[in-house]
C-alpha cells in the first residue's frame, strides 16, 4: 500500500447532519481519480477535508500522505504538502497580469525586490507547459474562463503541487476548452501529478479517469476501475434508483394565449450593441414553453428583460392577452402577473440571513395588509400554506434560509414567486444545484401549475430536462431564435444543432 493520499473511515458531522459517514478514499501516484455523486452527496465536504479547509480535529478518521499520517490545520499546510484545489470560482486577481498571478505569494525576487525578468521567463515556461499561447503580461480579466483555469493549473505547477483537485472544472468551458483541459491533465499524469476530478459530466469522467469513486448521502458506494464499469452503472450507483421516472410531464390542454413577445431587440444599456435580436414568441395558458441554448445565448437575459429587471429595449413589445405591458421594473412585472424564479438563487433569489417566512412573503407583502400595517396573522397563514404545499423541510417558518439545503432554498424562491399568484411563471434553471428528489418535486410543481391554467416558460441548459418537461421548445443562439420544435419533433441532435447555430448537421459525439 503506497497510496499517495489516503482517507480512511472519515466521518464529518455538522450540527444536525452527518455529511460524511465513514468514507474511505485513496489516490494512487499518477492517477486521475474521479469523484461522482449528486449534489449533497458529500463531495465538497470531502474535498474541504483533503485540502485543509475543514481542519484536522473537526472530523473523525485519518488522512495519510505518502503513508504518513497527515494533519492539516489550515489550507496553507495542505498546500505546502503539495495539494492544490482548483475551485469552481477561480481564485485569480483580475486586475493583475498572468505572470503576477502565477507567482502571487510566491514572488520571484532578487535582493528583496521583484525580479521581473525571472518572473516573465518562468511564467512563459509555465504557460508553455499548460499549452497556453498568451503573453505573460496579459491581464487575467481579459482571459476567458477556460484560459483562466489553465492559469490556475499553471500556478499550482509553479508551486510544485503533486495533487490537483478540480471541482467541476468544465462547468463553464466550451467544448474545445474542455478538450484542451483533458489533454493537459493526461499529460500532467505522465509527469507524475495525480488528480482528483469532480464532475457531473460522465462523458469527461470516462474519457479521463483511471478510477471512479461514487458517493451517495455521505457514504462511499463504490470505487471501481474505469474498465470495469459503464455510465449506466455509475448513474445507478449515484441515484440509487431507476431514473426512467425522472420527467413526469403531464401535458394539459393549452388554453388561450397568455403572453406574446413581438420582435424584441434588447441591448444591455443604451448605446451598446444589442444582445437579443428580434425575439418573437408566445406561450399559452397551461403550456410549458422550453427555452434552451448554449451558455451566453441570451436565455437569462431574455428572462430578466421580460421581467423588467434588465436591459434597454430597442424595439419590440410584450403583450399579455390583448393588453400591451409597459413595465420597466420587477415590481411592475409582478403587478402585471409575471413571476420569475431566477437562475442565481443566492444572488437574486434569497435574503439569506432572513427567515423562510420573511422570504416567502417579500413579493406579496403589499397585499397582506390591514390598513397601512402588515396583517401578521394573514401573513403567517399564507406562509404556512406555501410551507406545507411545497413540503419545505425545515423546523419552522422562522428558520433562516441560509441553513437550508439547495433544494429547500429553491422551494423558498419558488414559493415567493407563486405567492404573487402569477399568470405567467418564468423559471430560469429551476433545478440547478438541487438534488434529484427536489428536482422531481419541481417537475411535479410545473405540472400542477399548468394544470391550474398558468403559463410556464422554462429555461434549462440540460437537454433531457428541456425535452422532458416542455410542450414546445425554442432554441436560442447568439441572441436569436435558432429554431422552434414541438415536443414530438425535438431530439437532442436537432436541439443541439440549433443551439450551435447550424442547420441540422450531423452531431459528433
Amino acid at each position, binding site marked *: 500500500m503506497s497510496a499517495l493520499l489516503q482517507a480512511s473511515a472519515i466521518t464529518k458531522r455538522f450540527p444536525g447532519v452527518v455529511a460524511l459517514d465513514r468514507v474511505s478514499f485513496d489516490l494512487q501516484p499518477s492517477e486521475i481519480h474521479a469523484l461522482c455523486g449528486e449534489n449533497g452527496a458529500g463531495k465538497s465536504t470531502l474535498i474541504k477535508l483533503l485540502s485543509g479547509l475543514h481542519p484536522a480535529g473537526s472530523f473523525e478518521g485519518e488522512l495519510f500522505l505518502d503513508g504518513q499520517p497527515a494533519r492539516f490545520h489550515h489550507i496553507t499546510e495542505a498546500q505546502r504538502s503539495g495539494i492544490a484545489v482548483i475551485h469552481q470560482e477561480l481564485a485569480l486577481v483580475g486586475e493583475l497580469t498572468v505572470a503576477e498571478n502565477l507567482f502571487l505569494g510566491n514572488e520571484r525576487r532578487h535582493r528583496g525586490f521583484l525580479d521581473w525578468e525571472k518572473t516573465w521567463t518562468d511564467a512563459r515556461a509555465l504557460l508553455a507547459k499548460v499549452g497556453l499561447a498568451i503573453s505573460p503580461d496579459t491581464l487575467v480579466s481579459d482571459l476567458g474562463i477556460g484560459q483562466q483555469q489553465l492559469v490556475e493549473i499553471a500556478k499550482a505547477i509553479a508551486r510544485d503541487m503533486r495533487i490537483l483537485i478540480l471541482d467541476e472544472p468544465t462547468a463553464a468551458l466550451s467544448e474545445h476548452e474542455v478538450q484542451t483541459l483533458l489533454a493537459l491533465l493526461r499529460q500532467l499524469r505522465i509527469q507524475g501529478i495525480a488528480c482528483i476530478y469532480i464532475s457531473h459530466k460522465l462523458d469527461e469522467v470516462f474519457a479521463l479517469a483511471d478510477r471512479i469513486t461514487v458517493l451517495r448521502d455521505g457514504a462511499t458506494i463504490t470505487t471501481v476501475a474505469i474498465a470495469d464499469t459503464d455510465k449506466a452503472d455509475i448513474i445507478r450507483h449515484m441515484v440509487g434508483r431507476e431514473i426512467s421516472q425522472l420527467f413526469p410531464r403531464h401535458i394539459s390542454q393549452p388554453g388561450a394565449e397568455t403572453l406574446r413577445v413581438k420582435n424584441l431587440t434588447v441591448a444591455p444599456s443604451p448605446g451598446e450593441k444589442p444582445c437579443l435580436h428580434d425575439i418573437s414568441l408566445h406561450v399559452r395558458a397551461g403550456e410549458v414553453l422550453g427555452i434552451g441554448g448554449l451558455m451566453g445565448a441570451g436565455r437569462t437575459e431574455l428572462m430578466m428583460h421580460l421581467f423588467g429587471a434588465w436591459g434597454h429595449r430597442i424595439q419590440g413589445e410584450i403583450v399579455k392577452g390583448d393588453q400591451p405591458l409597459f413595465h420597466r421594473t420587477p415590481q411592475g412585472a409582478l403587478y402585471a402577473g409575471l413571476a420569475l424564479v431566477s437562475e442565481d438563487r443566492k444572488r437574486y433569489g434569497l435574503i439569506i440571513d432572513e427567515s423562510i417566512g420573511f422570504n416567502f412573503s417579500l413579493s406579496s407583502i403589499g397585499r397582506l395588509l390591514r390598513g397601512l400595517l*402588515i396583517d401578521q396573522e394573514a401573513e*403567517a397563514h399564507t406562509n404556512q400554506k406555501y410551507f406545507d404545499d411545497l413540503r419545505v423541510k425545515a423546523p419552522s417558518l422562522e428558520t433562516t434560509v441560509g441553513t437550508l439545503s439547495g433544494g429547500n432554498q429553491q422551494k423558498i424562491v419558488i414559493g415567493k414567486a407563486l405567492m404573487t399568484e402569477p399568470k405567467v411563471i418564468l423559471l430560469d434553471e429551476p433545478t440547478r444545484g438541487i438534488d434529484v428528489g427536489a428536482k422531481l418535486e419541481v417537475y411535479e410543481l410545473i405540472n400542477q401549475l399548468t394544470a391550474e391554467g398558468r403559463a410556464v416558460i422554462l429555461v434549462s441548459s440540460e437537454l433531457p430536462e428541456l425535452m422532458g418537461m416542455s410542450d414546445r421548445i425554442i432554441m436560442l443562439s447568439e441572441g436569436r431564435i435558432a429554431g422552434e420544435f414541438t415536443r414530438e419533433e425535438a431530439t437532442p441532435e436537432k436541439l443541439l444543432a440549433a443551439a450551435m447555430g447550424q442547420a441540422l448537421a450531423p452531431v459528433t459525439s
Partner: protein
Amino acid sequence: MKKQFSLRDFSLLLSLLAIWTFFALAAPQYLSARNISMLSVELAITGTLALGMLLVILPGHIDLSVGSGVGLVGGIASVLVFNHGWPAAAAFGIAIAVAVLAWTLMGALIVRERIPSFIITLGGLLIFKGAFWLVIGSRTVPVAPGGQTNLYSLLTTYYFPPVTSWILGAVVFTIWVFSTLRSRQRRQKLGFSVDDKELTFLKLFITGQALALAVLLLNQFRGIPLPLVILAVVALAIHILTRHTPFGRQLYAIGGNEEAAFISGVPVQRVVIGAFMVLGGIVAITGLMQTAYAGASTTTIGDQMELDAIAACVIGGTSLRGGRGSVIGVIFGALIMASLLNGMTLLAVSPELKLIVRGAVLTLAVWMDVKLSKR
C-alpha cells in the same frame, strides 16, 4: 426575528452597569436626581437621532451629515425666532421642511446616481456646516428672546408634573405589557416558539420595576422631561414603521440582499429615498431639541453627533452592512453612549480625551459587530 436572551444583550447590560458604577464611584452626583434628569434628556436627543440613523443603516447606507444637519436646523429656527421674531411653531415648520427636503435630495442622489452614501453625506456634512455658520453669522443666537420662554425653549425645559409622570409611566407600561402579551399569544397560536410563562413574567416585571424606578428618580427632580416623551413617541413610530409596514420589511430586505430585493419587486430606490426623508425629519426634531438644550445656537452645536448616533446603532446590534437592527437595541446603545458622555462631562474630562474615548468606543463597537456577524 425573535431571539433568545443572548450573550450580546447580556454583555450590553453588563457594560451599562459597569459604566454607571464607575461614574457613580468617581463622581457621586452622577446618580443624583438632577443628573439622572439631564442624562435622560441627553439620552432622548442621542436616541432620537440614532433611531433615524437606523433607518438608513438598515438598507446598508450611512449618514455622516446628521451632526451638521442638527446644527443647521437649530440655527435656522433660532434665527427665525430670535432675529425675526417668528413664532416658534412656524420656525419649527420651516426648519423641518428644509431638513426633509435636503435629506430627500441626498437620498435621491445616492440611489438614482449611484453615488455611495458615504461620499454624498460627507459632502452634506461640509455643506450643512457651512450653511449653518452662514445662517447664524457664526454668532450665538438664543432660542428665545431675552430670558422669555417659548415653545422652542420649553422643548427641553418642560417637565411633566409628578402625577402626570406617574400616569405617563403607567400608560407606557400598559402598552408594553399589552403588546408583549398579544404578540406572545399570537405567536403561540401560529405555533412559533415563545418564551415560557415565567420568563415572560420576569421580563415584564423587571421592565415595570425599571420604569417605576426611573419615574421615581425623575420625579425627585422635576418629573419626566418632555424630550423623553418625544423619544418614546419617535421610538414607537419607528418600531411600527420597521416591524409592521411593508416599507420597513423592505428596508431589511434591501440591507440583506439588494439585488434579490429588487428582483422580488421591492421598489428599492423609493424605499431608500423614503428612509432618508424620514431621517431628515428626525434630524430636524433632534436639531431643535439639541439647540434648545444648549439654550442657543452656537457654531459647535451638533459636532460629532453623527458618530454618537452611528455608535449607538452599532452598539445596539445594528449591522453596518445592513439588514439587521432593532429599535430597542438602538435605544440601549444610545443609553450607553449618553451615560458615557454625561459622565465624562460631569468629571470635567478634557475635550481631547473625550474625543479619544468617543473614537475608541465607536471602533470597539464596530469591531464587535464585525466579530459577531462573522460568527
